[in-house]
């Protein structure tokens, strides 16, 4: 397991957002975390990457508990988090955004070529201010930026948010390609269908609790999950 979350509880002020949650991400897989709005998916990712500190429980990443490590140090240990709504630095150019993605390392000449090969569109726009990119291009930039820290584990929060179906499809194909090169992926999605299609395994989250966990194939065939999250009636 590259990541194991054990008995995690997280509060927002006095409100409990996550209660005693456990989940695991095996090395090399794509794991999807699906669930309705407000179930706590984003909170889990933010706790894993260190932005929120849990009240109890542990987050074991690569053998060590990182639940109370500062977020910028977690990046150095090999995790990167593409936040909800992409978190592009809209005041910086595409190139400068990529440079910040590689902040923890020395940027090598080949690094950018790799990213540009994955998303040729970014190469064309490297000098452009990132705020002027389209939603799809911003998502490409967010993913590329996260890749440049050379993560072992990549957390993706709703990469399909606000994107046209065609773009979503291509983003998900790229996530699959990134995974095939050895990066483990934990994917949070409202678009459960698309997420489970590329994932090896899935967790279903309901108001702070995991209600189902199985291989994604089994979840796609599970009647309750189909009714609740896949739009079947």
């Amino acid at each position, binding site marked *: 397991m590259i990541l194991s979350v054990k008995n995690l509880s997280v509060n927002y002020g006095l409100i409990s957002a996550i209660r005693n949650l456990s989940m695991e991400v095996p090395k090399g897989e794509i794991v999807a975390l699906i669930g309705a709005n407000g179930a706590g998916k984003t909170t889990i990712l933010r706790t894993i990457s260190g932005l929120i500190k849990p009240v109890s429980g542990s987050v074991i990443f690569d053998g060590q508990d990182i639940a109370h490590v500062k977020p910028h140090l977690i990046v150095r240990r090999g995790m990167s988090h593409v936040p909800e709504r992409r978190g592009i630095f809209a005041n*910086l150019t595409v190139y400068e955004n990529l440079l910040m993605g590689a902040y923890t390392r020395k940027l090598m000449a080949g690094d950018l070529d790799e990213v540009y090969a994955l998303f040729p569109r970014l190469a064309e726009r490297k000098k452009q201010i990132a705020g002027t990119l389209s939603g799809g291009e911003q998502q490409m930039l967010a993913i590329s930026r996260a890749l440049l820290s050379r993560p072992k584990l990549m957390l993706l929060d709703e990469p399909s948010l606000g994107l046209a179906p065609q773009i979503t499809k291509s983003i998900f194909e790229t996530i699959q390609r990134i995974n095939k090169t050895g990066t483990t992926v934990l994917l949070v999605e409202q678009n459960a269908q698309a997420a489970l299609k590329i994932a090896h395994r899935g967790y279903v989250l309901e108001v702070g609790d995991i209600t189902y966990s199985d291989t994604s194939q089994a979840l796609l065939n599970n009647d309750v999950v189909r009714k609740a999250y896949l739009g079947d009636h």
Partner: protein
Amino acid sequence: MLQAFLQNIINGLAQGSVYALVALGYTMVYGVLQFINFAHSDIFMLGAFAGFYLAKWLSPAVSNPIFLLVSVILGSMAFCVAVGLTVERIAYRPLRSAPRLNVLITAIGVSLFLENLGQIVFGADPQVFPSLIATQSLLGGEGLVLNNIQVIVVIVSLVLMVLLHWIVRHTKLGIAMRAVSFDIEVANLMGIPTDTIIIFTFTIGSSLAGAAAILYGLSYPKIEPLLGVMIGLKAFVAAVFGGIGNIMGAAVGGIVLGLAEAFTVYYISSTFRDAIAFGILIFILLFRPAGLFGTFRREKV
């Protein structure tokens, strides 16, 4: 007519560049932490006194005026950085996750503390800032006054601003500073150590205030512990005018304010010198609250 116009340009530029240097410190700290560092004006004041004592100590030993000037400027910058970083460490960093209003009130507290400390240590009476370089008229006779001090003030400011521009545009730390000021949380997710960037920001802001203090002392050789109050307010107006958080805006705002003051004094009356600054503030807040170059930032929920 033309002569008077040019004279006002010269005076305005010299005064405005000092405002601009101080305004940069306000705007940069606002950019990364979203609060007005009211103690900044008192760091400026401390820089003037640091220069005052340093000059007294150095001048018997140093005969080359350029070397003396450069040493005093660098000394004042270093002293201001030390004070700025101490204030950040002791007063602001413990409040990093506190509401912004708490930090703002703390900043006012630090400002009052430094002003009163200054009065105890330096005395409340004004002191005469030593003339590090003998004033020489460069354009004499024809009524137009241009002296070497004015030229030095403008050139030193310009060099510092160009240097700052280069740091912010082309160095990794400078780009990270802009990233932090856009979104500190995402900057964290990039592995950017945000405390380091905040220290870097205070370092630059305070050092510019230190340089500005010496340039001010050269032009208006009377310093006292409440010196920072009015300069600070003017520089703050300049920063708001340019768009608080916007570096280019602060530089332009400072120059524009200096020019506006010079022209007001000449064409209207010197009693309106301070009124024009606050008039500009009211005007900008009414009609373009985000400032000349500013953009509204969305409040995060």
